């Protein structure tokens, strides 16, 4: 089970090492589901290369494709990233209010130090 999971993670992370693939994922995250043609348009590489990148992302479980007539639409599939995202959310929830309080405390200390030096 552990090996199976780490093999999956290997694929996920290997898929993320490529800048073009990260750019594709970033667009999918920002814009929602878009067609293969729309994905290819702003990229400087040719369509077969785009399809190859999409294949890598799909086998890593990071995207899913659906077909309506002749149009193939791609959407992001965040499941493999969920443990990482859950960790981030947990600690953001923990630290953000504490660092706010740290700031308020340090600012009060600063005001006190200035009053003293007057």
């Amino acid at each position, binding site marked *: 089970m*552990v090996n199976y999971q*780490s093999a999956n993670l*290997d694929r996920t*992370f*290997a898929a*993320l*090492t490529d800048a073009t693939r*990260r750019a594709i994922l970033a667009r999918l995250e920002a814009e929602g589901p878009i067609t293969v043609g729309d994905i290819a348009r702003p990229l400087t590489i040719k369509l077969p290369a785009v399809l190859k990148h999409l294949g890598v992302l799909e086998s890593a479980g990071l995207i899913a494709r659906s077909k309506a007539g002749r149009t193939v639409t791609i959407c992001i599939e965040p499941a493999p*990233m969920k443990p*990482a*995202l859950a*960790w*981030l959310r947990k*600690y*953001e929830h923990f*630290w*953000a*209010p*504490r*660092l706010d*309080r*740290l*700031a*308020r*405390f*340090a*600012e009060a*200390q*600063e005001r006190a*130090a200035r009053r003293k030096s007057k």
Partner: protein
Amino acid sequence: MSSLTIVKTIAARPEIVFDALIEPEGLRKWIGPDDGPVLIAESDGRVGGKFRLRFKMLDGSEHEARGEYLEVERPSKLAMTWQWQNHDDRTVSRIEVTLRGVAQGTELTFTHSQLPSDEERDEHREGWNGALEKLGRTLGGRKG
């Protein structure tokens, strides 16, 4: 590995922010939950020194974290390990804080990173840790 980064500008000089981060009296003021008390705030603020923080939530549950200071460079840099004592997840993570003097006071950059386990360290190739770190930074950087 995941990595959360929060950047804040604080209207206080770096020395004051640094001391608030590391001295027990300072930690006591901000490390607890909003309405719950800090029960223990121990901190030996030197390289190799340990800290121990315990606080109580409104629901009555108590939480304790411990760690060791890895880098202590007043007033610009602080790094330490972080480990929950009474949670399911007892993996050791790493916190790094850098403080930079700016016109308004201090720019604080706080990063809490998951560390790979020993197995992962052995298995994993360089490269995709970096890729994930970038991803983590982007996600964490949106707020704060």
